[in-house]
């Protein structure tokens, strides 16, 4: 079940400078004269479309970025594309980090949610992926498929009972004996970051196991047999052999999970909701957006700061991120 990830990025040697060298049309048609020129033009259309799409794709973000440096009047009177260097200001950034909104605190909150919610599932899923890949037991395949089938489960389906559990603990009322057994005591998790860690960990499990299993199960079998003959137990093999070899896939999952938890709004809104002191950035900027335009001037700056960290992570570690996406959806 190996996942062969072909190199995603291949720089082609030819530059796009001369449109006629770009292959895109029909090579057999090479009539002479003005028709030829029209054909050369037609052949450059695909390149044109591609770069047009690239421009269209970047315009929204660019507009937000530019507007984040303009004050309220400038934003309201002219479009961002008419920006003049003289009107650029950092006031919006001052305001969102300052007394008016306290974005700094919510950035900390986001980090406090995203970092543990990334680390905890990695460890647990790595154990399980190894177990599914290299420990032989009855019903292994069925259990694995059942686990991975949960990949598609919409998390909405678990939210209400989870919130109830974090608010009140969980108990089971025995019908005949008329007594209630407390299964999970009330740990006072309502509105805490811990509740989001647990939820994120649970929801990440199927994908994490699937992703790591794809990789770990493709490690060479001889390696494990040699180690077994040397008398190494599963624990040793896992710790000394599998973990170091799996760094790339662990990194891929970590990036994935970090972006997911940093950008999450639904779980944070459900579990933390109104608890203002623990609100992550997504809730903060969503609230700013819902303020009937009162904070419209600082919204671009706030949204940009919120997106800045995932974008940095994305560009710095794009290779791993792409690998994660590919391994998670394409099976080789």
């Amino acid at each position: 079940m190996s996942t062969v990830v072909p190199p995603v990025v291949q720089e082609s040697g030819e530059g796009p400078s001369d449109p006629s060298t770009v292959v895109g049309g029909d090579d057999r048609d090479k009539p002479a004269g003005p028709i030829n020129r029209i054909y050369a033009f037609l052949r450059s259309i695909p390149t044109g479309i591609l770069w047009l799409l690239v421009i269209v794709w970047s315009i929204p973000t660019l507009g937000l970025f530019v507007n984040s440096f303009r004050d309220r009047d400038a934003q309201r009177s002219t479009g961002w594309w008419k920006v003049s260097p003289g009107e650029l200001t950092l006031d919006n950034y001052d305001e969102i980090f300052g007394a008016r909104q306290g974005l700094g605190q919510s950035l900390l909150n986001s980090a406090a949610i995203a970092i543990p919610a990334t680390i905890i599932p990695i460890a647990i899923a790595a154990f399980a992926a190894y177990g599914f890949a290299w420990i032989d037991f009855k019903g292994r395949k069925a259990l694995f498929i059942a686990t991975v089938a949960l990949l598609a489960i919409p998390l909405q389906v678990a939210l209400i009972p989870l919130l109830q559990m974090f608010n009140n603990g969980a108990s089971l009322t025995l019908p005949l004996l008329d007594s209630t057994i407390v299964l999970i005591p009330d740990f006072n998790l309502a509105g805490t970051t811990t509740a989001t860690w647990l939820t994120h960990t649970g929801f990440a499990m199927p994908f994490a196991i699937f992703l790591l299993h794809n990789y770990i199960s493709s490690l060479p079998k001889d390696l494990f047999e040699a180690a077994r003959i040397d008398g190494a137990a599963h624990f040793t093999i896992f710790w000394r052999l599998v973990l170091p070899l799996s760094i790339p896939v662990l990194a891929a999952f970590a990036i994935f999970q970090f972006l997911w938890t940093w950008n999450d709004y639904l779980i944070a809104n459900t579990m933390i909701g109104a608890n203002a002191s623990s609100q992550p950035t997504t809730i903060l900027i969503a609230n700013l957006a819902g303020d009937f335009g009162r904070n419209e001037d600082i919204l671009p700056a706030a949204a940009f700061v919120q997106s800045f960290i995932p974008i940095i992570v994305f560009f710095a570690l794009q290779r791993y991120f792409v690998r994660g996406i590919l391994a998670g959806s394409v099976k080789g």
Partner: protein
Amino acid sequence: MEYARIAAGFVLVLGLVYWAFVEPKIRTTFVTVVIAVAASAGIWIGANLLFDQVRVHWTRFMVIASAVVGAIVGIVLHGNLVTIGSGEGFFTWVVGPLAGAAAFGALGYGLAVTDDPSRRRAIAIGGSLAIGAVIGLVIRDTYHPEFDAVAIVVSTAIGAALGAGISLLGKKAPVRGALTGGAIGWIAGAWGGADLGDGSLATSLIAALVPAALIGVRLAMTSNPDYRARLVLDNRSRATIFIGPALLFILVMLVIPAVRTLYLSLLDDDSEDFVRLENYTSVFTDRNSLDLDNWTNMFTSIPFIIGMVLLGIAVIVGVTMKQRTGRAVEVGNPTVAPLVFGALLVAFGAFTAMRGTLINNLWWVVVVTFLSTALGLAIAVLADQRGGERFAKSIIFMPMAISLVGASIIWRFVYTARDTSTEQTGVLNALWVGLGRLSTGSGLPTLIFGAAILLALIGLLMVCARMLVRYGPGRAVVPGIAAIFVGWFFIRYVGIIGTGVGGHRVAEDGTVSAETVFFVQETPYNNFWLMVIFIWIQTGFAMVILSAAIKAVPTELIEAAKIDGATSSQVFWRVTLPQIATTIGVVVTTLIVGVMKVFDIVKVTTNGQFGSQVLANQMFQEAFGFTNTGKGAALAILIFVAVLPVMIYNIRRMQREG
């Protein structure tokens, strides 16, 4: 480069450490995580080390394992202040677990070192009874149970039956399971179902001795395993240790809550009374969820009409093609493009005429899934092997890193509509109003733009004619359709039909003023503009996966096709596309699941107003806004049911691929 990265990482770590000591929030989080991780790791590694003993040091394993069980029993009894002497200072925290560990450890040692069956029987039953007697004696007066015979009998019987059943399922003697299950059932019945404190020392002793005896008999049936059996035990325990934590999380956080949601969806808003399927029927009868009254309007909607025209063209061309080649529809055939886009537009038109949450969700699924996949595929093909591929793909892919909330805000500024008397600050309205000005104006720019459209129209017609002459009607279809669109646009632009294109309004006295589009507020098309946000994000996802699949198509196949004289488009339709069909399936299913639960975009932009409600947002509102648990749960289940086919498809695929 490598050093730069290491340096950057070092600075980052230093910064984080500094941060951790400055910010109390980070510090407490950090400390909690470290403690939790260390404790879990300690337990996990400890369990591994314990089961490392199984293969070679059986006695040691038995002693430690029994001692751990005993310590847990000690902690449970002593920690809950059930036993005499508990709750008095630190000392008592140690005594209970230590006593339990010593007693159980001794029993484990006795069993591990003895192989003679009769002596094992004596040790097992004697030891268990001794432990049971001690427990019965040290229970505080206030916890002595008063017996409820019915409860005990029923509970024990149920436990025994369940245990026997489980044993039978595992193809083992049912007596063993029955004994264990009976013991647990007895404990539940005698202690759990009784009024504690009303009994006497005698009842306490009996309540403790009976399960001890049952377990003793069960233990007496065992024998020390030989090496082979120990290997099996080693393997099984390892499977549990490695997979158990993950399964525990999945069970507690996903499976059990999902089942409970199903149960809650059958109860009323306070989860008190059973209302059967009322929550579900209320979803389907509510006009906000499903409103088909104006469905006939679809026949007059523009996308529907254009779609029908495209379908008509597809049929006509298909018939002509059949006369020429004998095959009407085949991948790569020019009937496919108008067929697919025609169907999409017809569906789109139909969705604009019907209203409601369910319709909206379906609309989202059809449009976002289709356009994201199509655009992703187009970009993957366009960028393949072209200069600047890496850069282009990075830009298209980047929205994947941005939160849906952030994306909604980014697009909010694209969609901004200002008062028509002032300048438009949203890109789309600026373009729309500008186009209106061009179309209704009479200056030089109007002429230039008009000439450019005319030139494009002529070019398209020339291409169309050339294709028609050289290759027959088949290859003239796509440029022909493009020519029709451009021609229609030109006719409207110069005002042969209507007053012009773009955002303008002509008053009765003939004066022309600007008119904006309220992209987010105008029903029903605002749904589409919200979908655009999601398409903007998901196209990158589709592109990355499809691009990798295209690059994985064997070069020999493409070379062979080219040598046989296939054109680029023929290579794409007949070689590349069939090769990546499975991957397209993966992309489509993943997108469907993602779109079904779309929440953030709708929540942030409209919060379901202006006819843009979707299931996930309605579910959130009902469950957490209006505290109507039953309806919220029913909506969650509906989302789940909608993705169920995808889940089943995925399972089938995995089973096939082994």
